[in-house]
């Protein structure tokens, strides 16, 4: 899929008089990614989403220094902030203050701000790694199905149907529930993170696989692939040098749109108590603790908003990216 050149832009640079005088710039050939970037730059909403995504990633990466600087350790109890008779935070608005920016949790008084920042790390880590897993599986499967066709396509196509019709959440819950505490040379939350990445990634590859298969099918018939083949290129060369580079744009777009789905998936599993084990802070886990405290809306609100903002930012950015790469969307 190559986009037609952005006519309005190139027409100006290729004005007849400038060609005649010979002083003007020559018509520039622009790559797909440059055209996409020009479109994206004009899309304010997508840019806002993209900037939010970058900010969130920075917060996640530097979560430890941020917490050290303006918060309290996420696992530290602050009983002095808790009214011992009601077990609720002493201060107004759930104990919000300059010291505890988003208040403290009831009962044990842990700093909500720190827990949300620390939760960003887990959420983004699992969301992005799981997406990588599904991108790898989906691309390999999609390319094989689309390029070779025939029975390989039949089998992979059926496999994708089966996966798309699976009760993912129930299966993932079951799988996450039978994971032992130790295994594959890992233990504790390290093992759980690895398993969650694998489970989420393994169940969400078909959405990418379908897109890649469709794109490969149409790329296979293109002239430049014919040209390469008639010059004697082998399948491996065609796949890696001719087809794969042209698949990068759709893969990038759908990977961006898959990340928020996977973040929601992780949050759901942690909410249900089969994701990351407490006391490690996760947004989903915080919400499941908040269930018992309906009188404290802020306790529900902040982790929920954290999920919402993150997922929305990725969705906005992904939508914008898709529009930028796909001119028909305009």
């Amino acid at each position, binding site marked *: 899929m190559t986009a037609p050149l952005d006519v309005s832009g190139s027409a100006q640079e290729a004005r007849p008089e400038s060609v005649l005088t010979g002083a003007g710039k020559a018509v520039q050939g622009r790559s797909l990614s440059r055209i996409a970037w020009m479109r994206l730059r004009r899309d304010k909403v997508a840019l806002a989403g993209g900037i939010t995504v970058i900010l969130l990633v920075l917060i996640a990466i530097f979560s430890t220094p941020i917490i050290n600087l303006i918060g309290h350790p996420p696992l530290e109890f602050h009983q002095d902030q808790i009214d011992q008779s009601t077990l609720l935070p002493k201060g107004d608005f759930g104990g919000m203050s300059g010291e505890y920016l988003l208040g403290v949790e009831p009962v044990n008084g842990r700093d909500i701000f720190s827990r949300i920042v620390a939760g960003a790390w887990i959420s983004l880590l699992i969301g992005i790694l799981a997406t990588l897993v599904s991108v790898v599986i989906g691309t390999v499967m999609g390319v094989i199905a689309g390029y070779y066709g025939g029975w390989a396509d039949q089998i992979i196509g059926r496999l994708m149907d089966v996966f798309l019709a699976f009760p993912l959440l*129930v299966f993932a819950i079951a799988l996450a529930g039978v994971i032992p505490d*130790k295994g594959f040379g890992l233990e504790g939350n390290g093992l759980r993170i690895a398993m969650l990445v694998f489970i989420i990634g393994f169940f969400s590859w078909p959405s990418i696989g379908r897109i890649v298969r469709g794109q490969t099918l149409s790329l296979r018939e293109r002239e430049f692939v014919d040209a390469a083949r008639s010059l004697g290129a082998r399948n491996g060369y065609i796949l890696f040098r001719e087809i794969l580079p042209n698949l990068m744009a759709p893969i990038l777009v759908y990977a961006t749109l898959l990340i928020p789905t996977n973040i929601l998936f992780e949050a759901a599993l942690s909410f249900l108590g089969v994701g990351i084990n407490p006391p490690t802070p996760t947004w989903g886990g915080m919400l499941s603790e908040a269930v018992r405290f309906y009188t404290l809306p802020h306790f529900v609100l902040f982790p929920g908003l954290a999920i919402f903002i993150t997922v929305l930012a990725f969705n906005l950015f992904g939508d914008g990216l898709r529009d930028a790469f796909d001119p028909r969307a305009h």
Partner: protein
Amino acid sequence: MLTYIIRRFIGAIAMLIVISMVTFGIFFVVPQWAGSTPEAMASRYVGRAATPETVHLVAQKLGFYDPVIVQYGRFAKGIVAGAEYDYGAGVEQCPAPCFGYSFISGQPVWPDLLDRMPVTFSLAIGAALLWVLGGVSVGVLSALRRGTFFDRLSMGTALAGVSLPIFFTGMLSLVVFSYGLGWTPPGGSWTDFTENPAQWAYNLLLPWITLAFLFAATYARLTRAGMLETMGEDYVRTARAKGLTERDVVVKHGLRAALTPILTLFGIDFGLLIGGAVLTETTYTLPGLGQFAILAIRNQDLPQVMGVVLFAACFVVVASLIVDLLYAWVDPRVRLS
């Protein structure tokens, strides 16, 4: 048509077999890869208090030392013909369809599943009605008024809708409408339809709306995209040129074609929901299949978990089978290809 039906039925049965294999694999093969021993697995069946000797005996009686293929055969046979579980202390009957026998609750899983079915079904059917009507009509209106304020507002709301986790919106709705304003009943309210239909609907109102909001968002986005595509087709222009009313053009020519992918999605979504609206039921503490699954996981009651997973998967297969047959009935191209 008949060959199509037969072919589709065979496909569905093959799918069920694959699903039973995957389910079996998750519970019996994956733990072994992760280094679990037959004894460790058997201890999950008899509870934590059992002595090593009992565990070993149970593992033997339940056949955990047999090759995987033999175990799968026994498992599949149980579903079709029923099974007996001899765990040393006595023989437990599990009549067909045997979806497993829970040693913790001391009874077969199947009747438990049937008990919880009506709750989940009630939840799914009401929500589905709301989200299809709401999502499709908003999508159509947005497509027809593309670029207007209404379009931007509804698509913005839809984007927010798909970005909100249901357990968050569910909890907020409870905080605001049940505990704050007192308009709706608190979480955990459930009345059987046969007992009092009005109370049934009143209790389910909030879960219905919350669940429908999430799905309506996806359906509105899809309908809008589909409508924009079909309304640009030649046959729509032809229909207009014939002098049909705009209403006929939109409904009979535009919407009908745009609805096809939505029907497929609906089949899968509805099947998935019947199989367990886990998050909604957990948020509103409704005693349905999803809650059953979560409780089973918390109790480490593996036969129950496995039963509910298998049950859930069957619904997706059945729902997509029904949708496919409906398709073939509505659209001749499907059954002839």
